[in-house]
C-alpha cells in the first residue's frame, strides 16, 4: 500500500461524514429558522398574548402610548388583496405563456423566451420596488386620476410581473411532462391545437399547473421590498384597488428597525414572521407533494 492509499483510507470516512453533514444541513437550517424566529417572539406568546385579537382586529397601533393594539387583520387584508390581484393578472398570463412556450414555439424561440424569463426572474425585488415607486406611480396617477399611485393596483402589477417567471417555468415543466402520445392520439382524432390544449393537456397537467399557481402565491405572500415600496404604507383594510395598504412583510421591514429589542412590538413582529414562515411552509409543502404526485405517475 502506498502512502497516498493509506492516507485515503483514513481521510475518506471523514470526508464522507462531512458530506453527509452538509446534506443534513438543509434540515438544520429550516428548523433553525423556525426556532430562532419563534424564540424571539415566544416570550410574548407565553405572557398571554391575545392571538384572537392578533388575527381578527384591524387595529394596529404599536407605537401608541396608552392604547397599544396589535391587530394584524388590516395587514393580512393588505397581503391578501395584493396577492389576489397579482394572481388574477399573473395566472392567466403565466399559464398562457407556459402553453405557448411548450406547445407552439420552435425550439430556438423557446430558448430565447426561457432566457428572457430567467432574466425577468433575476431582477432584484428592490429594483421592482423602485419601478413601482417611480414609473408605475406616475402611470397610475395619470391613468386613473388618483391622488397617489402607491396602491394595491401598483403592488399587484409589480408582484404579478415578479411571480410570472415562477408560474411559467413550473407550468412549462408540467406541460412538458405530459407524454407526447397523448398529443398524438388527440391529433389523430382530428382535434385542433386548441382542443388538444383545452381537453387533453390542461386536464393531464392540472396538478403541475396547480403547483405552479401555488408557488406563485407563495412568492407573492413572501415578497417584501417591492410591496414595501409600491403599496404606500397605510394600515387599513382596502376598499378598492386604488387604496394604499401595507402587507405583513412590509410591516416587519418598516418597523423592525424602530422597535426596541425585546419590546412587545419587536416580539409581535417576530410572531408575524412565524405566521409568514408557517404559511409559506405549508404552501411549499403542498406544491411539492402535488409535483411529486406527478412524478410517480
Amino acid at each position: 500500500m502506498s502512502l497516498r492509499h493509506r492516507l485515503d483510507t483514513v481521510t475518506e470516512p471523514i470526508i464522507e461524514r462531512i458530506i453527509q453533514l452538509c446534506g443534513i444541513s438543509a434540515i438544520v437550517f429550516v428548523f433553525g429558522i423556525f426556532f430562532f424566529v419563534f424564540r424571539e417572539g415566544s416570550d410574548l406568546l407565553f405572557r398571554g398574548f391575545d392571538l384572537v385579537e392578533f388575527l381578527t382586529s384591524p387595529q394596529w397601533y404599536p407605537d401608541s402610548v396608552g392604547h397599544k393594539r396589535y391587530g394584524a387583520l388590516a395587514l393580512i387584508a393588505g397581503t391578501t388583496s395584493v396577492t389576489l390581484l397579482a394572481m388574477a393578472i399573473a395566472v392567466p398570463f403565466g399559464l398562457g405563456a407556459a402553453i405557448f412556450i411548450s406547445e407552439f414555439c420552435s425550439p430556438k424561440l423557446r430558448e430565447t423566451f426561457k432566457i428572457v424569463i430567467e432574466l425577468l426572474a433575476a431582477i432584484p425585488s428592490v429594483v421592482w420596488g423602485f419601478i413601482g415607486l417611480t414609473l408605475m406611480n406616475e402611470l397610475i396617477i395619470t391613468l386613473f386620476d388618483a391622488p397617489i399611485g402607491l396602491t394595491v393596483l401598483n403592488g399587484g402589477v409589480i408582484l404579478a410581473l415578479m411571480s410570472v417567471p415562477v408560474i411559467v417555468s413550473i407550468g412549462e415543466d408540467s406541460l412538458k411532462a405530459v407524454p407526447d402520445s397523448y398529443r398524438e392520439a388527440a391529433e389523430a382524432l382530428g382535434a385542433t391545437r386548441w382542443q388538444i390544449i383545452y381537453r387533453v393537456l390542461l386536464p393531464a397537467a392540472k396538478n403541475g399547473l396547480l403547483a405552479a399557481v401555488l408557488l406563485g402565491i407563495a412568492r407573492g405572500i413572501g415578497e417584501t421590498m417591492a410591496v414595501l415600496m409600491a403599496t404606500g404604507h397605510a394600515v387599513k383594510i382596502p376598499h378598492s384597488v386604488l387604496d394604499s395598504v401595507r402587507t405583513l412583510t412590509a410591516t416587519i421591514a418598516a418597523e423592525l428597525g424602530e422597535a426596541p429589542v425585546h419590546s412587545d412590538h419587536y416580539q409581535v413582529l417576530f410572531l408575524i414572521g412565524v405566521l409568514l414562515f408557517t404559511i409559506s411552509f405549508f404552501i411549499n409543502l403542498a406544491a411539492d407533494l402535488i409535483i411529486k404526485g406527478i412524478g410517480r405517475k
Partner: protein
Amino acid sequence: MKGQVVATNESNPASLGANPGLSSTPGYGSRDLFTETPFVRKKKRTEYLVEAIFFLMTLLMVVPLIFIVCYLFYRAAPALSIDFLFSAPTSGMRGGGIWPALLGTLYLVILSLLVSAPIGVLAAVYLNEYARDNWLTRIINLAVVNLAGVPSIVHALFGVGAFVLFARMGRSILAASLTLAIMTLPVIIAATKEALSAVPMAFREACWNVGASRWQTIRGIVLPNSISGILTGIILQVSRAAGETAPIMFTGAVFYKAISEGDIFAYGLFDQCMALSMHLFTISTQVPNVPEAIPYATAVVLLGTVLLVNMLAIVFRVYLRSRKKW
C-alpha cells in the same frame, strides 16, 4: 363536430380570398378530395387565433423587461459615469457616487459565497451520490424546497435572532453574509444537483469497476465532469445575493458609512457596511430631495450587475452544452 361541412363557400366570406379557384364551384361533392372544407378552414382559423392569443400573452411578459431596462437607462443617463461608480456619496447622499455601497455588496457577496458554495456543493453531492431513496433523503429534499420558499424577510428575522443576537455578532458584515448564505444555499444545491445528475451513470460504473471507492470516483470523475454546471450555480448565487435587500437590512447593512476612498479593504468583518440594494432603497424612500437621476443610476448599476452576471451564467451554460461529449 357540429354542423359538419354543409355550409357552402358563399356563406363564408372569409374564404373567398383564400382559394379563388375553387370558391366558384358551390357544394361539397364537386370538390377535389384534398381542398379545404369550410370546417377545416374554421378549424385553422381558431388555431391561428389561439396561437396569436398565447403569443401575445408571452410577449406581454417580455415587453416589460425590455421597456423597464430602457426606461431606467434613459432616466439614469445624466448621472451615469465612471466617477459615479468610484466616488463616495456627498452632501447627505444627495450627490456623489456609490463606491462604498458597491464595495459593501462585493464584500457581502464574496463572504456569503465562501460559506454557501462548499456547503451547497457538498449537500448536492450527498443528495445525488450518497443518499438512498429513503425518508431522510425525502425530508432533506423537502427542506431544500422549503428553504428556497421562505420569505426573505423571515430570513432577515432569522439573521437577527440567530447571528446578530444569539451568536453576538452584532449588526455586522459577518452576520449579514451568513444570512445571505443560508438564503442562497438552495440555488447552489439545485444547480449542482442538476450538474451531477447529468454525468452519465456509466462513468461512475467504469470507475468503480477499476476499484475506485465512492469518494475517489466523485473526486476523480464526477466533479471534474460537472464543474461547469456547478460554476453556473455559483454565478446564479452571486446574482441572487447581490440583489437581496431585506435579509441584510437588519443584519449588517446601514444607510451610510464613510470609508477611506481607494482602499478596497476598507471594511472589517465586524463592521457594518453599505450595500447597493440597501442604498437604492434608502435614497429612493428615506432621503428627501435627492436629484432625480441618482436613484435611477443606482438602480441601473444594480440591475446591470445582476443581469450581466445572469447572462454570464447563460452564456456559460450554452457554451457548455455545445461542447458536451456525451
